């Protein structure tokens, strides 16, 4: 078989099958590092074997079987080692008893969920969690993860190694958290997924305004998680939110890659399949009684936009009410900022500006470029062009995204000419 075709197939199989192989292995051997190493061994074995014999009809089953074989072998050797230690030491270290047959026939969904909980463990920093998640749950290699984060490969490799070491040092083994622990652990998982999505949705750095590869990975994770725990309203709410936001990705950039604001987007370019998925998920959230959760509320806001055929049709009063709800259950300066935008749309720029004032007092908002960007927009609409210009310049100075910077500079220039035009 020709080498390139084999390499492509094996690389694809790594993407499709490695998360499951690793998940099953983690349950067998307990730790992520060994599991990943064994999975790589299984794939290397596959390449050698398939090079001479061709790819089998069911390569996934072959990989799972080989991985299992390697794991059993490793456990046996470890046990042998272990009993030798036991002869020497009077106290025995803790061992994990695993019924191999039970694991092999066990539920793959549980394996995957367990692995997700492990790599999204709150003991890890959000950065470490997202790198490890992209690598092990999405099946990306370190190079891809580095490219996704616009970071040098050694940095990401280091981050992943350190994350695995942290898990090992804290003796975090494969487990499905107890019911009482679940909500907090699931919140940590959702946080990682939305972090990845947002990094792609509004790239905080780099030359591109949207990095859709990260959005795609976050969606894959969200869809995976929603299928594993289909009755968890906030997880479905998060997925609904991402589906609805992703439905607009095509319309969010202009021909030169510049950002196009929601109200100016060509709505015929919105992805109707994703909108339908988002709205259906939101209905499900409602049936499950979870409409008041923070992700569900944000999804409901996104749905208001998705339902409006034109920008003028937007139900801003409903959006304002949803933001009021969001501000109560999960208050944050960013929510306040959005509430101000919605309020300005529903009740005029002055009402919005009144909500912005307290935000300028917050130290955490001092470096946040969207605050002056929004203030500039509202001041402009209120006819206060010179003040608006100052705010746009401030936003341009604060943003790290070059596309956004030129948009802000453009708006400042626009204000300057309008200001000059008014007597």
């Amino acid at each position: 078989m020709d080498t390139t075709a084999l390499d492509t197939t094996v690389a694809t199989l790594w993407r499709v099958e490695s998360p499951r192989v690793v998940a099953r292995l983690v349950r067998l051997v307990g730790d992520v590092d060994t599991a990943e190493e064994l999975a790589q061994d299984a794939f290397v074995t596959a390449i050698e074997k398939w090079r001479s014999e061709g790819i089998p009809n069911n390569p996934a089953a072959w990989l799972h079987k080989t991985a299992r074989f390697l794991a059993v072998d490793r456990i046996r050797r470890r046990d042998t080692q272990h009993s030798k230690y036991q002869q020497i030491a009077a106290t025995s270290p803790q061992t994990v008893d695993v019924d191999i047959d039970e694991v092999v026939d066990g539920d793959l969904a549980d394996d995957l969920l367990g692995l997700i909980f492990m790599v999204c463990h709150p003991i890890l920093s959000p950065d470490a969690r997202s790198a490890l998640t992209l690598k092990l749950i999405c099946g990306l290699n370190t190079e891809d993860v580095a490219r996704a984060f616009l970071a040098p490969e050694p940095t990401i490799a280091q981050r992943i190694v350190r994350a695995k070491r942290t898990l090992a040092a804290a003796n975090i083994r494969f487990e499905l958290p107890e019911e009482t622990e679940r909500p907090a652990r699931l919140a940590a998982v959702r946080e990682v997924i939305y972090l990845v999505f947002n990094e792609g949705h509004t790239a905080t750095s780099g030359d591109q305004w949207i990095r859709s590869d990260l959005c795609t990975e976050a969606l894959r994770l969200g869809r995976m998680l929603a299928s594993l725990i289909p009755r968890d309203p906030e997880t479905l709410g998060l997925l609904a939110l991402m589906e609805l936001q992703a439905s607009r990705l095509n319309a969010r950039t202009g021909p030169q890659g510049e950002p196009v604001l929601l109200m100016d987007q060509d709505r015929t370019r919105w992805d109707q399949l994703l909108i339908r998925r988002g709205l259906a998920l939101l209905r499900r959230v409602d049936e499950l009684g979870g409409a008041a959760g923070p992700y569900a509320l944000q999804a409901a806001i996104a749905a208001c936009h998705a339902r409006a055929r034109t920008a003028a049709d937007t139900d801003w009063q409903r959006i304002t009410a949803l933001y009021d709800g969001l501000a109560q259950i999960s208050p944050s300066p960013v929510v306040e900022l959005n509430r101000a935008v919605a309020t300005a749309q529903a009740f005029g720029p002055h009402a919005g500006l009144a909500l912005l004032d307290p935000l300028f007092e917050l130290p955490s908002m001092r470096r946040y470029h969207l605050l002056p960007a929004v203030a500039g927009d509202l001041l402009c609409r209120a006819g206060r062009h010179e003040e608006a210009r100052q705010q746009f310049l401030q936003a341009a100075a604060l943003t790290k995204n070059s596309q956004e910077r030129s948009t802000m500079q453009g708006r400042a220039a626009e204000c300057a000419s309008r200001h000059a035009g008014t007597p």
Partner: protein
Amino acid sequence: MRYMVMHYQTQAVEDGVLPSPAEQAAIGQYMQEAAMAGVLLSGEGVAPSSAGARLEITDGDVRVIDGPFAEAKELIAGFAILEVDSLAEAVEHARKFALLVGAERIDVRRVLEFSDL
């Protein structure tokens, strides 16, 4: 990118034989598999062609022909839309479908997107 994975009708289904519980379970398992991989966007199956119709258009003349139609193998039985990285990845998911559900032929076609136009 998106791919449409299509499978084709069997003569038995065309003859009105309902899928056995085992076959239904296999389809359910495949849908769960694809959902668990995070790649399934949408999927539908269709009834035998006796419940459908075909439009043939010659020089603007529209002729409506009621089913059933011959050549079960040429008739679509169902499709799934998958969001994946590559044709190769779509093929691996189609392979899972073939192995779980059983099919004589599966077509994997890329869905045109806005950026193609």
